[in-house]
């Protein structure tokens, strides 16, 4: 049995008395799409932040393709092959869509001073290659028309596509998506679901996503984990989880829960 691509073991995190995560353990098999669902405040984003290195856990361990990454700096973890998006899609004010993508490519030799000043020929070659690939990605994500537009000029839905585009450019083996389908119209949701599935089938990526939209989860996820108040309370296929008594109990009678049921 191959090692899981992403392994989270007994992660706990306290925020000054508030238990955000309590001994959460889960495994994500390679080349699968996994969903993490739960009400607001159940600890999903905290888990993402810890896995990607933006937050330090109090105890527990995270392993990426078998290598421990707990406590490593976030940029280091990113360089090791973990890419993530943010709940609010980032769209830098003064950078164009193409600049965003070119920024995202990994292993750029021009990103040092010496490289910028002395290695100009090989860097130009790499830049051109990346530029061609970037244009392909923009075509795939319906953003080709905005290639040279400032990313801040994009609409909310387009910004979500830009996040995915950056992640495609990044070409990381493991991808964490934070609410990719939030606040977008059904057409776009379909495009996004397609892109996420393609990440797995065409590119062999492992994807973990946080979502409230159960329809989206049902469309793309192979496996689902349910968090509630910092604890893992259920796991299984989307269908299993939807009909799980524990899960249903956790959400019945709880006002702010926003698990949108499938039709």
């Amino acid at each position, binding site marked *: 049995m191959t090692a899981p691509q992403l392994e989270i073991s007994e992660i706990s995190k306290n925020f000054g008395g508030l238990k955000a995560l309590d001994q959460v353990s889960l495994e994500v098999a390679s080349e699968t799409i996994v969903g993490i669902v739960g009400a607001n405040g159940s600890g999903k984003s905290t888990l993402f932040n810890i896995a990607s290195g933006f937050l330090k856990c109090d105890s527990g361990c995270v392993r990426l393709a078998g290598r421990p990454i707990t406590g490593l700096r976030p*940029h280091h973890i990113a360089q090791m092959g973990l890419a993530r998006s943010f709940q609010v899609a980032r769209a830098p004010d*003064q950078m164009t869509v193409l600049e965003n993508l070119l920024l995202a490519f990994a292993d*750029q030799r021009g*990103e*040092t*001073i010496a490289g910028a000043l002395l290695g100009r020929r090989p860097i130009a070659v790499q*830049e051109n290659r990346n530029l061609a690939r970037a244009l392909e990605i923009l075509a795939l994500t319906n953003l080709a028309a905005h290639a040279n537009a400032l990313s801040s000029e994009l609409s909310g839905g387009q910004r979500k596509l830009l996040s995915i585009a950056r992640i495609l450019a990044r070409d990381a083996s493991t991808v964490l998506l934070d609410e990719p389908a939030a606040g977008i119209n059904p057409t776009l949701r379909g495009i996004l679901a397609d892109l996420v599935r393609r990440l797995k089938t065409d590119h062999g990526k492992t994807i973990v996503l946080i979502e409230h939209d159960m329809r989206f989860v049902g469309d793309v996820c192979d496996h689902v984990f349910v968090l509630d108040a910092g604890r893992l309370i259920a796991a299984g296929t989307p269908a299993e989880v939807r009909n799980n008594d524990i899960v249903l109990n956790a959400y019945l009678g709880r006002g702010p829960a926003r698990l949108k049921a499938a039709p």
Partner: protein
Amino acid sequence: MQFFDIFIYFATMIGIFGILALGLNLQYGLTGLVNFGHVAFYAIGGYTAALATIAGAPFVVSLLLAGIVAAFAGLLIALPTARLSTSYWAITTLGIAEIVRMVALNEEWLTKGSFGLDAITPPWLDLVPTAAYSAFYMALTWAVVGAVLIVLILIWNSPFGRALKAIREDEELATSLGKPVFLLKLKAMALGAMFAGLAGGLYAHYITFISPDDFTPVITMIVWAMVIIGGKGNLVGSIFGTVVIVGFYNSTRFLKDYLPFEAETVANLRMLVIGLLIIGVVLFRPQGVIAERKRIYKS
């Protein structure tokens, strides 16, 4: 004849301050680092070059030393501060500049304190005819400006420059894309500090006398005015801003015989205008006169 001399003086000072502005533009305009201690690197460069030349080193060595020591200082200063948020960074860099000035003022064994260092021999004095020397030095200064501009243009358009810009725009995003933000900030500070050090070295050999009074916090503020009025993130903007501010600053000095004010009042009025310009730019044209250019890629 006198007009020519004034022109050369202006041009040389614009060159020196232009290098300062370009360095700060790299730190603030491109990378978003609020460096309120820029004058410290100017001072460190000036004193290093002066001490080296007085000790007998050739000009080129003195100038290079000025740049290297200042770059090193930039690195040292960035080390404890690079993880701080904007406000804290600004305060800390201001504090460091003040300490540098205090050291220059008080450590007389090194810097001769308020007496300053004089007898800094200008370079190649015997090779250039005296009448043409000031023009020569102006050309020398602008040669350095040219070199600095070339380096900055290369950096600005490189993936390194793009990573710096990403830090300015969205540090978390840059981090999530694998950019070593802390290290990049160190590099940006060191590079900008190096340019400031070169400017200090050029200044020391031009005026041939430096003292702590040449390196007050006001200099930092003036250079900031140049960068944000001229246009942050735009290299031509920095030169433009330098021309405007240096022109304004020094013209009032030359015109003070014609103005009905005392010298001190004129100095205050200068500050008033520059302060109002800074506020005006922030309120009404935050991108500066010559805005940052959008990077267009042709497919």
